[in-house]
């Protein structure tokens, strides 16, 4: 197995162009597991940890640009106040050791339907910046996932960053696992309020072959809130609205039975998580309508 270790982004892109079958590796928390289990035998590994700029973040034009190599620990510590939904999701990733190594870019590259970072990106309408020697493009995150563990990258492209707007309203993330920590998702749900646009964003994980939004649920709730003037003078939500939102989220899912759970349970749990997280973000919005979100207490 060849081991390529570029020290600049330009070299990394060149290497990927010359070795299109090279497997990029950052924290290695997915790739090494796959190699150990013999699920894949890359002809070469393209180690991205020597590129300092990949593990950084910056702010441009009101958006955050998160380098693909930024470990979860730094994402939580440095961006948790501005990206509370993503931070809650990041806290559920593995153990502290895994969070020190694992990256959002790696999460995207694995493109697992169970990737913890994906639902908050969907709920916030994030974009994935990908690059090759041919140039750069920005993909809306929902166009990034094309199938189970498959994504829209060309063979010479690498993920360079994620572009995401800082929270303008409350955000939440919830994950079902059969253990109280360090657990792969049975299913996940993310919600984000966008008061400036009077929109609600959602993201579902382990609910279908790819992470996805519950678009009907978003439309329904956004419409209900706007029609009743709730964004300007928020009141407690009607139970019927909360229930309908949960039902629509559950209906958006097409989960499977597998070794971790059943399709029926996943559908049920998505509905419960949708209702609860909606309650949490709406309470927060009612109490702090101008808040830009706050870190979860965990």
């Amino acid at each position, binding site marked *: 197995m060849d081991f390529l270790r570029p020290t600049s982004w330009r070299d990394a892109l060149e290497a990927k162009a010359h070795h299109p079958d090279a497997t990029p590796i950052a924290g290695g928390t997915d790739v090494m597991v796959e190699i150990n289990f013999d699920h894949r035998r890359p002809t070469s590994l393209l180690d991205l940890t020597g590129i300092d700029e990949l593990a950084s973040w910056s702010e441009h034009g009101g958006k955050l640009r998160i380098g693909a190599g930024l470990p979860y620990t730094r994402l939580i510590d440095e961006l948790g106040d501005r990206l509370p939904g993503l931070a809650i999701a990041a806290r559920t990733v593995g153990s502290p050791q895994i969070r020190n190594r694992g990256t959002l870019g790696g999460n995207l590259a694995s493109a697992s339907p169970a990737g913890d970072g994906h639902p908050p990106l969907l709920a916030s309408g994030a974009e994935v910046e990908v690059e090759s020697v041919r140039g750069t493009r920005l993909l809306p995150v929902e166009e990034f996932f094309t199938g189970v563990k498959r994504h829209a990258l060309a063979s010479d492209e690498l993920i360079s960053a994620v572009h995401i707007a800082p929270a303008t309203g409350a955000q*939440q993330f*919830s994950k*079902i696992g059969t*253990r109280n*920590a*360090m657990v792969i998702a049975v299913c996940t749900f993310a919600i984000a309020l966008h008061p400036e646009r009077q929109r609600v964003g959602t993201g579902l994980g382990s609910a279908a072959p790819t992470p996805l939004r519950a678009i009907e649920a978003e439309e329904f709730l956004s419409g209900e809130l706007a029609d009743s003037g709730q964004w300007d003078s928020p009141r407690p939500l009607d139970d019927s609205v909360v229930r309908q939102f949960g039902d629509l989220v559950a209906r958006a899912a097409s989960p499977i039975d597998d*070794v971790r759970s059943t399709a029926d349970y996943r559908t049920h749990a998505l509905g419960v998580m949708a209702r*609860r997280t909606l309650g949490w973000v709406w309470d927060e919005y009612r109490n702090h309508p101008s808040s830009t979100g706050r870190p979860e*207490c965990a």
Partner: protein
Amino acid sequence: MSDHAPARSPQDLDDSIAGGIGESPTRPDGALKVRGEYAYASDLWAEDMLWGATLRSPHPYARIRSIDIGPALATPGVYAVLTHSDVPGENLYGLKIVDQPVLAVDVVRYRGEAVALVAADHPETARRAMERIEVDYEVLEPITDPELAAHDTTLPELHPGGNVVRHQPIVKGDPEASADVVVSGLYTLGMQDQAFLGPEAGLAVPAPDGGVDLYLATQDLHSDRKQTAQALGLPPEKVRMTMSGVGGAFGGREDLSIQVHCSMLALHTGKPVKMVYDREESFHGHVHRHPAKMYYEHGATRDGDLVYVRATLYFDGGAYASKTPVVVGNGTTLGIGPYAVPNVRIEGWGLYTNNPPCGAMRGLGAVQPALAYEAQMDKLADALGMDPVEVRIRNALSQGGTTPTGQVLDYPAPVAELLDRVRRLPLPAEHDSAPADIRDLPGGASNTTHGEGVVRGIGYGVCIKNICYAEGADDYSTARVRLQIIGGEPLAVVHTAAAEVGQGLVTVQQQIARTELGVERVNIHPNDTDVGPAGSSSASRQTYVTGGAVRNACEAVRDVLLQRVAARSGESIGDLSLSGGKVVSSATGVLADLADVIGDDVIEETREYHHRETYPLDEELGTSERAQVQHAFSAHRAVVDVDTELGLVKVVQLDCSQDVGKAMNPEAVIGQIQGGSAQGLGLAVMEEIRVDGGTIRNASFTDYLIPTILDMPPMNIDVIERADPNSPYGVRGVGEPPTISSTPAVVAAIRAATGKALTHTPVAPEHIIADIPR
């Protein structure tokens, strides 16, 4: 032993930690383990060694038409490819029944059965060569239902003699007795894994005498040696085994794994060969806890006195017998729990199927029925409108009581006292508003509830477990103790074959030697087959039997010393003792320094300890004057918060009262109770090997979950010491009971919170959501 031990062999342990019996000295291997410096079997290394790999069957049941090793053998870097025809001795082994091939001949009976071996100069080369071995299989329909295996005579016979490994009835009193209040249930238990962290590993070094030196991690060196020598066609003395660091065992290292395979490759190639399983292979390469299906009926008077228990238990042994006979023995004899019941009829079946082989695991055969009989006791309490603890206390077994096999308990059996004590331990605070930290709630770090849907429940469990080997086995251990003067100070060396698997036996051996010989420095010699057998580190027996052997050997050494001094001083030997490195007379005080009495001599004595004889069960009625040498008891109380909408569980508190006879090392006893309780908690809410059509679907720690620190709550632990007059120092086995009573307590607490029947363990979220009310 070979002249040169391989690198990363067992290292010397600290011999300078003070502390005798009843104290809690730190472990001599503790600092090494905490610092990551302790050498485990997977760290073994030799110059020029080869790496071994095992080709395993991808089918649960298939005929082998042919095996072509040609392409594998032609792979550069490959030194050997071996099949069944290369097994030098008998191609069969087994702990109780010799039924398992070293390498499959013409049939494979489980997914993962060893078919061929490769030795190569690099592990990846070995792995690639392994994939080039061409095995032509005729796939057969696997038998996967143990109950069918017991009764359906149209099924193929997986072994000569049929699919029943053991069938054992137990009958006491009137097996057809009737009662006013009757409760019944069907309970099932999934397959639990020992989940030790150190995978199977060893290094075999061919010896000039044609034999082999094997460095490995095991629970029982002599049992391994006997089976390995038989398969290699070598006399036992030419198969020498040395213990390397054991990364956990819990029963999973009682059966052979790498032993014969690694030795075959080393003998064939003339080079040292190392084998290490990866995690996935480990799941296929060791036995698991027997899944069980258990039909129970309890009858009681309206006052709550048990009249009868009738039960039928099916234990799925999988493809090979391993410890199935013992599981059936324990499961039936202990099948009614620690209760006094006048009329009993229990039938236990241990079966062959094409599921993964099952064998020893902590709580062997006693874990399964405890889930059923404790659920039944709660059901009975419910039917009677009584408190669940009161029903248990009312029917509790006690000293002088009789087991279903007719054995009279001639030692303390404080079952009622344990129950009463555990219920009096302090309860956690009720939380009326959501706790500040989501990690204290069901779902924990996953942020699934801020208090919504959360209901608290409390449940109890109590259990009985036999300690040591039973049913007529000559159960003994051997210890060699050497005393000499090194650097002007007396140094005792204790040499046994008893495996330190994490339980702290090395510490207890040091403590016994310090107390018995009155010396400070005690060195533990590495375990090997140069000393007599110790038996397995299982059945909660090592402190009992090896502790007894070390005591006996120390007493023999002491006698030699005291006789010398008595002869010299003219004092009566009965007045003399050893203390603080000196010989002391109760009449005249200090008589001599040990350094002077011993001089340049080396005083060495070897002794065995055999426990009281036990006897087999009657084949028809299960009666036996003494089937088991000792019983141990523990009681748990679990407090859980259940998210009733999502089915997620947080065990808030798990408390235990246990009788340990004598706490040789009180801190280590607490550690055993904590560890056992965690393993039982895991079985209650998450640990299950999912087997589908004979194939394991979650052979990894990604999907076979064990509790983390966020799942395991704080414990109140209440240890009592009611000495057993028959055992050394009055000890009672500690390791297994807390694994047994914790699981039913947690499940009972979840039932209390949810009102659901929950007849399958482990309880999964989907069970809580979907299950029927009880």
